[in-house]
């Protein structure tokens, strides 16, 4: 992957111009810590990613979708990892992966945009904050660990805050930024010709940015790119990676398998690309909310509530474990009779992992990242 100084989009005055610097492995003592936040936009199905195969209600609720868990790695008596996540399974065996299940942000409705806004902003209500939890975290970090970059055309909400952040958009995928797209969507809303055209154009673009495409290689490329931006001596230390394509309302089985294969390769490429620095890296994978327990009429699942978050890295507090205060999948145990009930806040999972990773006071981390909680 060749990066040029030109293709680094500067949103602030200081940014790691990764490609313009000599590329050598940073392996000296006192390796700075690195953090990668992988956002799964579109509500990833936690019940398929880390399937509660030991729950008596699982097979009946998931019907045909339940079968795919058969080829996955058993994580414990209750949970089975999706078979697409082979490299992640090895990390789990090596105590470098942790899954937090039945988690959700404070958001309880089912709009992607509101949900993502809460996940990134970390506020108590949608659009409650105009900065994000990663952006606020940067204020707690030493200067050497504060350089942050997002692989996105514009700075995502999660990274916004008082510290300047860079963005990098691969130039082979020129994309109009998400904000312009949203504004044009409103502009075309009442235009009988442009509205359907635009609708389809935006959906196609979202598909093109799926990490599941190209048999997972899109995910691998993204992971490799992320690692290359974090490797140089003064490269980025905090990274946000965007993934889309998780909104599996129909034909979930094949689509989600491809998505997770892409995610698995992304994680694998990150680990490989970071080399020894992986041991000082924490990767957080999270989505805005989960999906319904029951399969819908089109072989998919609809917007739900609780889902799964992944923590990956060399020095996890509880690697090789699934943590869950498991609510059960029986109808009576579900949230509003349809969704996996959230029994733990995603905010506390993220704050806890970050505090451990950077050896910071957990209370201070919690009040900084989630001041409204």
């Amino acid at each position, binding site marked *: 992957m060749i990066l040029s100084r030109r293709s680094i989009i500067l949103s602030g005055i200081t940014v790691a111009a990764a490609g313009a610097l000599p590329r050598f492995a940073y392996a000296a003592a006192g390796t700075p810590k690195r953090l990668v936040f992988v956002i799964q936009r579109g509500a990833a199905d936690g019940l398929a990613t880390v399937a509660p195969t030991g729950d008596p209600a699982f097979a009946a609720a998931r019907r045909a979708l339940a079968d795919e868990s058969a080829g996955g790695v058993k994580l414990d008596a209750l949970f089975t990892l999706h078979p697409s996540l082979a490299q992640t399974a090895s990390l789990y065996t090596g105590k470098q992966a942790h899954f937090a299940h039945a988690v959700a942000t404070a958001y309880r409705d089912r709009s992607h945009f509101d949900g993502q806004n809460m996940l990134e902003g970390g506020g108590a209500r949608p659009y409650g904050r105009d900065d994000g939890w990663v952006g606020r975290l940067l204020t707690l970090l030493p200067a050497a660990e504060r350089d942050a970059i997002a692989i996105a055309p514009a700075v995502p909400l999660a990274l916004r805050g008082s510290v300047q952040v860079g963005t990098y958009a691969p130039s082979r995928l020129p994309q109009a930024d998400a904000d312009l797209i949203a504004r*044009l969507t409103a502009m075309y809303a009442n235009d009988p010709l442009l509205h359907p055209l635009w609708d389809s154009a935006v959906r196609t673009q979202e598909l093109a940015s799926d990490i599941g495409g190209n048999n997972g290689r899109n995910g691998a490329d993204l992971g490799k790119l992320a690692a290359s931006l974090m490797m140089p001596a003064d490269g980025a230390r905090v990274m946000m990676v965007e993934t889309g394509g998780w909104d599996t309302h129909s034909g979930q089985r094949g689509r989600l398998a491809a998505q997770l294969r892409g995610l698995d390769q992304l994680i694998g490429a990150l680990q490989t690309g970071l080399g020894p620095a992986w041991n000082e890296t924490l990767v957080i994978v999270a989505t805005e909310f989960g999906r319904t327990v029951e399969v819908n009429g089109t072989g998919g699942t609809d917007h739900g509530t609780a889902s799964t978050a992944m923590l990956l890295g060399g020095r996890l507090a509880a690697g090789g474990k699934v943590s869950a205060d498991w609510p059960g999948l029986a109808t009576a145990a579900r949230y509003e009779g349809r969704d996996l009930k959230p029994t733990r806040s995603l905010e506390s999972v993220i704050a806890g992992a970050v505090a451990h990773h950077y050896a910071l006071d957990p209370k201070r981390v919690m009040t900084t990242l989630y001041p409204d909680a």
Partner: protein
Amino acid sequence: MAVQYLAANRFGLGRRFDDPAVDDPKDWLTRQIGDYDPAPAAIAGLAGREAIAIAYAEYRDERQAMRRDATNAQMGDDGGDAAEAMRRMARAGFRRHYGEAASARLAAAVATPTPFAERLVHFWANHFAISADKQTVVGFAGNYENEAIRPHIMGKFSDLLVAAVHHPAMLLFLDQAQSFGPDSVFATRVRNRGKRQAPGLNENLAREIMELHTLGVRAGYTQADVTNFAKALTGLTVAGLGRGAGQRLMPANARPGETVFVDRLHQPGAQTILGKSYGQPGAKQAEEVLRDLAVHPATARHVATKLARHFTGDEPPAPLVGRLAQDFERTGGDLPSLYRTLIASPEPWAAEPAMFKSPWDWTVSMLRALKAPGLGERQNIAAMFAQLGQPVWRPGSPKGYDDMVATWAGSAALMQRVELASRIAGRIGDRADARVLAPLVLADALTPETAQAISRADSPGQGIAMLFASPAFLRR
């Protein structure tokens, strides 16, 4: 009714940032007929026919030499690589003429003070479409528009037709340069030697002239009319491109890239076309046919329909088509008279802008609106239009690009426009204020919703992107 916007975009190519306000749009359009300059500064200095023909011949010779070398060397040593490099260089030479002409075409369109006339140049070049798919045609494409189309758009349709048909680009594109009279002196001699198959007729140009340029498809002409017309056209060819025997047939004084009439290739005798016998000698024969086709009532109808569609939409109103056809017949195809009829007719002014700008129109109107250059100096213009789905002078068929909304309004195309608008807006940044620009370029087509959306943009650049992607600006 968005009269100002229609005048500037349906008739013109979009308002320039420095255009003065137009009080009387119809008068402004009519004056352009007289003010039109067939040789604008932007196209001066482009390569002439001879240089273009020589560049092609060099490329062809390099290619041949390379093949010979490859055969001699039995593949794969250094000689092959060197030949490949030379071939690429020669190829770059003749492709450069295309790229330079495409850039000049854009510069002319962006700068022109007579955008209605310039639109008509584009319209007629597309009516008499050539397509730069063939290696022989590529270099000539720009020269075709500049030398066959531009000088004739304010004259008679018949002169425009004759000029288009006689240009090397058309003769090469529709295979006329290789069409020989079956009983011509040349074919007869080859046949008598009995060594190889005698060269013969190619009907391509004759058919497309009748079907696309003049009468229109299914206008009553027969296969015999096409064949006889093709025979009448034989003898017309291009000097300096052929090889071997063909080259020796050319007149001694012919310059490369020049259209020539070679009597020894011409089918002798009179030809009957549409019931009329044409007995003129030599090149005169085909020209007489062309001049009759040019004023045929079916041609009047065909041209009127296309012109009306270009200025009203997918389904041109019958009264407008009728009025233009009548005018065409009455004046014997006087083009300025057609334009005046078009301007004076109510139909092009009746509707809100409902036509979807082609990628070309949209890009030109965008660049005209900006004072600062919207594209980088090193921007490859030809490649940009290829990416937008409308490669310059390369519609892929002699039919040209069509004027239907559905041709240009696609979802991927729309996203590409938004991406280009974003890129241009990124270059412009705060050197233009979309809130000031919007009332100027959208004029009476600016809706309160669009004005508000632009004013709420999160940056000057985003405002410009939204202006260019606005529903009104995408239309004409």
